[in-house]
């Protein structure tokens, strides 16, 4: 506030700010808000992609129909199950691995890079790879279990509801734990050493240091990581689509949504219904994000 009024550089700050912000607002409006508005508009009508002229106004009835659709409710539950398990395991593993990688040891740089490999592989490739590893005849997992005499008959992991979802969750854990590690490691490196020193002087043991220093300090980072991962997991599509195509009760909301929009909504008047489902997925994820922000007391400013 010490700037003088005659300073020409600062006088027009708001104008400059606006000039810099407008392009990004325009871009966001075009690539995010406009499609969302379009989807919402579509969800108010019953129409088929093939016959855009036969459009009838449906109001919000598609949203009511969603909750009467057992497949939608079942898939929502599958998605929540997938998200809960995968994000939960990833967070715990992520913290553990990040704590390890935060210690100084030989070849630390190399190990840190190696940990990232699963995350760097495209999901399509890793899903296809794991599909083979789960194969009952030639899969490496069955081969190891059989040679260790843990099982007598090969397990067909992806055929039955009892094993298919856990198998898919494992692939997601394998793939995205590195992402968690990366974010949490960044959080750990921001903790000043003086805090640990002070804790030691106060006589805190390793466990107490973790609970009273490390965890509170990385809580915002974990919060951000949880938001990223949960939002990602709630709209999981590729792993499921490639590994089971939704068979064995593994269908998630996005897989159902894709089918409704393309296969069903092309010919029969379900395009609006599919759009309503897209909007509903957006709303569910939005509520989840707000919940996280509140719970973790993350300051977004």
């Amino acid at each position, binding site marked *: 506030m010490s700037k003088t009024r005659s300073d020409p550089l600062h006088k027009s700050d708001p104008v400059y700010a606006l000039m810099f912000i407008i392009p990004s607002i325009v871009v966001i409006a075009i690539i995010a808000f406009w499609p969302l508005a379009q989807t919402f508009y579509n969800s108010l009508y019953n129409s088929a992609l093939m016959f855009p002229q036969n459009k009838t106004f449906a109001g919000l009835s598609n949203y009511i129909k969603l909750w009467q659709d057992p497949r939608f409710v079942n898939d929502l539950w599958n998605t929540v199950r997938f998200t809960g398990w995968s994000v939960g395991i990833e967070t715990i593993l992520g913290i553990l691995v990040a704590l390890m990688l935060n210690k100084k040891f030989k070849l630390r740089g190399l190990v840190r890079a190696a940990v990232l490999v699963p995350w760097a592989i495209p999901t399509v490739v890793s899903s296809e790879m794991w599909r083979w590893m789960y194969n009952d005849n030639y899969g490496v997992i069955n081969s190891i279990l059989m040679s260790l005499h843990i099982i007598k008959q090969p397990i067909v992991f992806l*055929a039955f509801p009892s094993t298919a979802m856990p198998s898919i969750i494992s692939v997601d854990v394998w793939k995205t734990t590195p992402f968690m590690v990366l974010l949490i490691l960044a959080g750990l490196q921001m903790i000043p050493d003086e805090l640990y020193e002070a804790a030691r002087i106060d006589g805190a043991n390793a466990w107490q240091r973790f609970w009273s220093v490390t965890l509170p300090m990385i809580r915002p980072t974990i919060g951000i990581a949880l938001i990223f991962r949960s939002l990602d997991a709630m709209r999981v599509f590729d792993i499921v689509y490639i590994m089971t*195509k939704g068979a064995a009760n593994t269908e998630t909301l996005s897989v159902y949504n894709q089918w409704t929009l393309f296969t069903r909504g092309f010919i029969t008047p379900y395009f609006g219904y599919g759009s309503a489902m897209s909007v509903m997925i957006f709303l569910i994820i939005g509520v989840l994000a707000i919940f996280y922000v509140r719970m973790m007391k993350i300051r977004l400013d």
Partner: protein
Amino acid sequence: MKRSLILMVVLMTVIVISSFATVTIVMTAGAVGAELQVLQTQIKEFMQQNPGIKVVLMPMPNSTTDRYNLDVTYLSAQMPEPDVLFLDTIDPPAFADFLVNLKPYYTDQELAQFFQGAINNDTYNGRLVAIPWFVDAGILYYRADLLQKYGFQPPTTWDQLIQEAQVISQKEKIQGFVWQGAAYEGLTCDFMEYVHSYGGNILDENGKVVSDTPQVKTALQTMYDMIYKYKISPVGVTTYQEEDARHIFQNGDAVFMRNWPYCWPLLQATDSAVRGKVGVEVLPEGTGFPGVHHSATLGGWELAINKYSEHIPEAVKLIKFLTSPQQEAYKAINAGQAPSVLSVFSDPAVIQAVPLFKSLYNVFMNAEPRPKSPVYSQMSQIIYDNVNAALTKQETVDQAIVNMTSQLKQLLGQ
């Protein structure tokens, strides 16, 4: 300096003028292996014969579902490109309103050259919306060496197949019979073969749902029993697609396989463990019902023209070129795909290259289409979801039949 400048101007003018004079046709195409290479060679020849037309190939994904999704995107956006579409046999009814009626471009004589089952398949509401390019049919592959060793003949009924597979698979410690049991389009193809072979059907001639007959139930029960009662098919078959089954059979780990003809050249390749040991036969028939017969599901790919295309006459020219007897013979010899033009089946060069086509001529001719409906892909999902649920014990066979029937009736408003 001046001369080169003039030369450049002239050259530029020529390029600009010639680019206006040529018409560019975009065609969707298969993306892998011999199929794409063969097509590229054919296209080159076509462009030499027709200097005014340039053809650009747009390779498509491998799975028929992904191709369908892409076609939905192009057509519903009402884009003029791609001009020529490459469609699965099951697609013409769904896309009919977006495709050019090709009947005015063909004489009856020209159409009579084609395999009539495929022409019927591509005719919807009296409009010929696609031209068959190559045909496919489900066939039974068997290990000729093993059948001979145990003194068996190739099976003609499912019961015989089960019995032979049981004996050989137990003695040889390999799988008996592999097929496509994952929840996807391929399972509908397999299931329809059992249903037809027991004399049943999903829709009758009037389009009424008839999937709750004893024949259909027996068909599903037979598939279920192969896995859990007779144990000739591994439980994993419920996750297999074509390639999963082929890998097992080609490694010598199965006695029988249901698959499409594309496997033949691969099984005979130098790196195949079963090279020279494989025979092919029409799939077995059912027993115990009137009207049992050998059945093969009709597959194949069609060529069609996008209604929004700006170069329809040129696109017709391209389709006529690709489906001419000479080009079909070239494709059959080099890509192993069965021609849609009947005369090519008796071409000595073709029979020499792919002897399979001679022995399977009747199988192709009698191949049965899947239910013909614009909502076919939704029907198929109801079928394969319920069949797969029964095969993985999520529903009993009876429940699966009841659910399938009521869901089909609901979809078709019956």
